[in-house]
């Protein structure tokens, strides 16, 4: 595969600055509603706060790739005296937990850096984080060119994993005739 120069958007998460307000979850779910902003629901957010105030755990985590299998990660981390599970840091939409899935359909969701937004606009979670726990950094990198699967492809893949290719094919064919 060819190497290409690409602008990489990175969100820097400074957990020490997080005040735990979950505005990131609110605005993420609103932005990704259809039509845009027509509803909001943190359970649909592509960022989730791992949040346990009494233990001072405030950890924003972004939704990443869909995976069909659960992993063997059962380790624990202790950082600054606070205990986290390996799972807390994980971005995957995976079968072992309810996070990063649409609450009604169970389809996986993933942070897309608000790519539908106007060019030059920061992701909404960054815009709404007035405490600057979430900030945007951009850098140029040489990366392998690859084709990224779109939402529909990822969604179908998860359906295939759940119901099998034949059933999904039959259903799509049936719906196409309607």
């Amino acid at each position, binding site marked *: 595969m060819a190497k290409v120069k690409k602008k990489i958007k990175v969100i820097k998460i400074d957990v020490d600055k997080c005040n735990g*307000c979950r505005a990131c979850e609110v605005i993420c779910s609103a932005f990704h509603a259809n039509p845009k*902003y027509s509803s*909001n629901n943190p*359970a649909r957010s592509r960022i989730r706060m791992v949040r346990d105030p*009494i233990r*001072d755990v405030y950890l924003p985590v972004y939704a990443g790739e869909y995976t069909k299998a659960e992993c063997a990660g059962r380790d624990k981390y202790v950082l600054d005296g606070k205990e986290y599970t390996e799972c807390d840091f994980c971005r995957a939409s995976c079968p072992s937990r309810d996070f990063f899935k649409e*609450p009604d359909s169970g389809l996986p969701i993933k942070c897309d850096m608000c790519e539908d937004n106007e060019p030059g606009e920061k992701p909404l979670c960054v815009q709404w984080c007035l405490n600057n726990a979430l900030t945007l950094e951009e850098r140029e990198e040489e990366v392998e060119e690859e084709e990224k699967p779109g939402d529909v492809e990822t969604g179908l893949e998860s359906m295939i994993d759940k119901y099998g290719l034949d059933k999904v094919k039959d259903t799509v064919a049936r719906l196409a005739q309607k």
Partner: protein
Amino acid sequence: MRYAETGFNLEIDLSRGNIEREATDAKLTELHLGGLGTNAKILWDRVPPEVEPFSPDNLLIFGTGLLTGTPAPGANRTIISTISPQTGLMAYSMMGGFFAPELKYAGYDKIVFRGKSPSLVYIWINNDKVEIRDASHLRGKGAIETAELIKKELKEPNAQVAAIGLAGENRVYTASIEQGRSSCSRLGVGAVMGDKGIKAVVVRGTKDVNLARPAEFLGLCNDVLKYIQLRNDNPVPGVMTILQGLGSPQEMLHVDEKWHTENFSWGNARTRRKEFWNKEIEDRWKSVQEQARTRLVSCYNCPMKCGAIISLPGITTYMMKCFSKLTYTMAAFVDDLDFGFRIAQRATEYGVDGFSTPQIMAFAFELKEAGILTEQDFEGCPTDNEGKFYWMLDKIVRREGIGNILADGVYAAARKIGKGAEAFDHNTIKKHEQLPLKLGMLNPVYFLMYATGEKINITQIEGQFPQSPFPTMEERENFVKDWIQVPDEKFKKYLLDWEVRGDHSNPTYPTAEISAEIVDWQEKMHYIDDALGVCAGLSSFPLKPPYHIHNYPHIISSAAGIEMDETKLTQIYNRNRNLIRAINVRRGLRRADEKPPEDHWRKRFPELEEKLLDNYYKFKGWNNQGIPTKKSLQDLDLASVAEDLEQRGIINNG
């Protein structure tokens, strides 16, 4: 489709164990918005004045505001309403935190409790699935401890829990309902919850809240955020630090307490310590607070950081906000802030109001010193100031010995104890403990707010208009030049004309007429916030807030899809204000009850005060007893309320 709200209430009958999901009338949203407004409507309709606070027929309502759970910054308030065991009037106590948005996402605007459970229970609301569960294993547990235990037991770390501690279980009149970062503390709502046998209400919701005109609404929310940023970068000059910014007073951030410790009264709202703050105290308090405070935290969807996580060696971590760090410290005459943080942890787990409770304790020790209470009442009580307060807190919360009498609050305890104890009840209004603040010259605007506020709590009535005049015209001009929040330009003139001394100063200026207008504006913003579920800290409480009468109509309309303008919104405020007044006059509230404490100001003006009240009542469309007239109720679509008051002989001849 209903927008911003869900259109459903949960009706839970604890006596019969019955749970219903009931559709609500959309017309009521247009008349009252939601939150406090629709809570009051339910109380008016369903709780007649004969119903005692601890009757099964009293209701306990957990309400969300109309905007709660939408992306509107700071729209996170839970409004709890019932009949107060302390005052016998309508209680409405409110909290921020995370509970109300979660309830909306579960699909409900309110939970209405009636009846009494035969045993201690908790309520588990998980979207459409609602259960009444046994809580006998949680009896006597702390409020925060309870929340942690329930989340573990249900394996639901993201559930939100509102719980009572031992004080609520024992129906202590200052019992609060605690929710981690926040609490509904005033007027004994926790005692009613305990009386109903509810240890906790637990909620998890994963449904959508819908918006009527999304793009417009989001644009307005973005404007609010921008204005918050602007205000954070530009504190108001010329007022004391805690009033310069937005949010509730930033007591967790600021460590300089010279103003509070020297101007507020210590003990039973009695002693000013004018030379208290010195370098040694400052250094010590700074280091205590900075070590105790692990993180500054906020409520749901709000960039302000009014609360803090407090961790001290030897005690369980908890969260604190606002002024509670000082209330116990000052009431107990303890010079070390470390005590304040430590006793507040125990008080939070017990679930008591941090304003009233320390005053009740200080009152008790004053009675002991005066020989009205005896050594016998204090058997086993330590002699040091700190130990005394821990001991007394336990007695009150457990209702043991003298604690059983004190648990009903200063007013009731003074009358039960007798022997002259009434004279020591010098800081209550309508039987409810007030801020320990004693001042010199009467301020006419504050006189009216203290006297007539239905909340009976000055911090949730005041706001918008500066508390005192600016000394120079230059400062005044500077203040009014970007004062976009005024409902009318005339308020700028009132401030420009307000002098520290001379003809245009307290108590005769602002005049009675102007004072009524200023109070009306301040009240209006609180009543709107409390119906919308927006935190007063971003709206009605601070100077120059991001929400105001000019942008609210657009925000409400684009969120909820109901037509709104300033006139209509003002009409809704007046309707809600008058409905709550009607509930209270039906329960016996009259002019004679509308009195600030006699020693609140050193300089009093009886004639002027009568004139202020006369004029305010007239402005409101009330008679000289503070009772809304038939006509003013009819003008507010409250004809049925007028009819009821007429039948009871409370209104006669219009």
